[in-house]
């Protein structure tokens, strides 16, 4: 956990410090040479875009490659899994592991690979256009895209939780009375995706609770951390974008702070999408592990 935070801070924070320093520089240049101020703004925009777009782009690329890996893994593993479920007969009936659910989870991965992540990059480009050339604003378009994505993803997660609770497995600690204040805290304090996060964490928790009977809790924790690490990284980066925007707001151009804010929002939505992928990954991984355990136990 600590090395992850350190690496995020190392790569992302340095680029934000660059943004802050270059904003100071542009401020001094504006004072000295007011006749050049329009171009100072443009060049500052260049610097900020070049430096700041790169971490966002890297995150987009990271989530996309993870998505593709999960999708490929699923496509190769799915026939095998369904065949072995058919072979193992009724031993699955006591758990709520339906093959249809597996198909659904991984269909969501393919959906996010083909539609959600391209839409997110489109939203980011729309934001850049509307900040760089305010006469042709696409900000509503970008907001609409982000809103649609959030709606789509939360609908999918709601569908997951319905599927899972329909099986009647016992709820895990995350939905218990003790964790309710924590969930409230998260959902109120993380903008845009906070309530979504608690919902999806609850869904994953409910699912894992059924599985923890079969496989040890440590394995569940491992799978959780592997699957959720990219999501947490993205969330942290999105927060850093918004913090920088807040930090430089008093002395920077409104466009620069605005673009940082917009990229932060887009990264929050990306975080939501990666939750979907993480969920599918957790589901597939636990499914496989349980299957292997059942088969070895029968023999």
């Amino acid at each position, binding site marked *: 956990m600590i090395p992850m935070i350190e690496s995020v801070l190392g790569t992302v924070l340095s680029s934000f410090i660059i943004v802050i320093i270059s904003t100071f520089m542009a401020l001094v240049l504006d004072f000295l040479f007011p006749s050049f101020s329009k171009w100072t703004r443009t*060049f*500052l925009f260049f610097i900020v*875009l070049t430096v700041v777009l790169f971490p966002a782009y890297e995150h987009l690329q990271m989530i996309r490659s993870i998505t593709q890996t999960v999708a490929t893994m699923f496509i190769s593993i799915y026939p095998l899994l369904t065949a072995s479920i058919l072979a193992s007969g009724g031993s699955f009936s006591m758990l709520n592991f339906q093959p249809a659910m597996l198909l659904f989870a991984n269909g969501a991965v393919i959906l996010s690979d083909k539609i959600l992540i391209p839409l997110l990059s489109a939203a980011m480009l729309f934001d850049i256009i509307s900040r760089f050339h305010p006469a042709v604003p696409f900000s509503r378009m970008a907001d609409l895209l982000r809103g649609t994505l959030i709606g789509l993803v939360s609908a999918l997660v709601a569908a997951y939780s319905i599927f899972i609770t329909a099986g009647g497995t016992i709820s895990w600690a995350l939905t218990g009375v003790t964790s309710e204040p924590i969930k409230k805290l998260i959902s109120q304090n993380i903008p845009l995706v906070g309530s979504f996060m608690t919902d999806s964490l609850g869904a994953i928790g409910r699912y894992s609770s059924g599985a923890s009977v079969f496989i040890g809790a440590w394995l569940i924790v491992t799978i959780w951390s592997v699957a959720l690490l990219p999501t947490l990284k993205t969330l942290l980066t999105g927060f850093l974008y918004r913090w920088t925007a807040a930090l430089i707001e008093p002395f920077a151009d409104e466009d620069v702070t605005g673009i940082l804010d917009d990229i932060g929002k887009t990264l929050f939505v990306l975080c939501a999408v990666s939750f979907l992928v993480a969920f599918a990954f957790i589901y597939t991984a636990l499914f496989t592990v349980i299957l292997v355990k059942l088969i070895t136990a029968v023999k």
Partner: protein
Amino acid sequence: MALLGILMVTLFQLVVIYLLLLIVSFASKSLQPIIYAAIFLFFLSYVGMTIIIPFGKTFMHLFEPLPGPYAKLLIGSVFLFYFSELISKHVAEAGYESIATIAHVAIKIAILSLWLPQLATLLDTLSKFIIK
């Protein structure tokens, strides 16, 4: 202390130059443009050597932590633009506005071509969003 001395000297020179130009305009109207031009260039080079260029160097040094050529490029292009604007304004004052415009446009194009590699990197990053 040294900087204060330079500033005082510069101010004093400004006053002297002003008085000199007044005297020249009184003594010989026909010689005034060439003396004005000579004094302008002399004063510009003096101020540039003692104040503007040292300040630019300190300024660049201050923003050294910025990556790559950004600080140097931005500060250098601003100073280039400033000098070109000064000289072309002077030429325009003498009545040769078209020449001043040509020189200024040339400097602007030079500044933009200094920035072209950076612009290419940015366009590359942006186009990666679309293509893949």
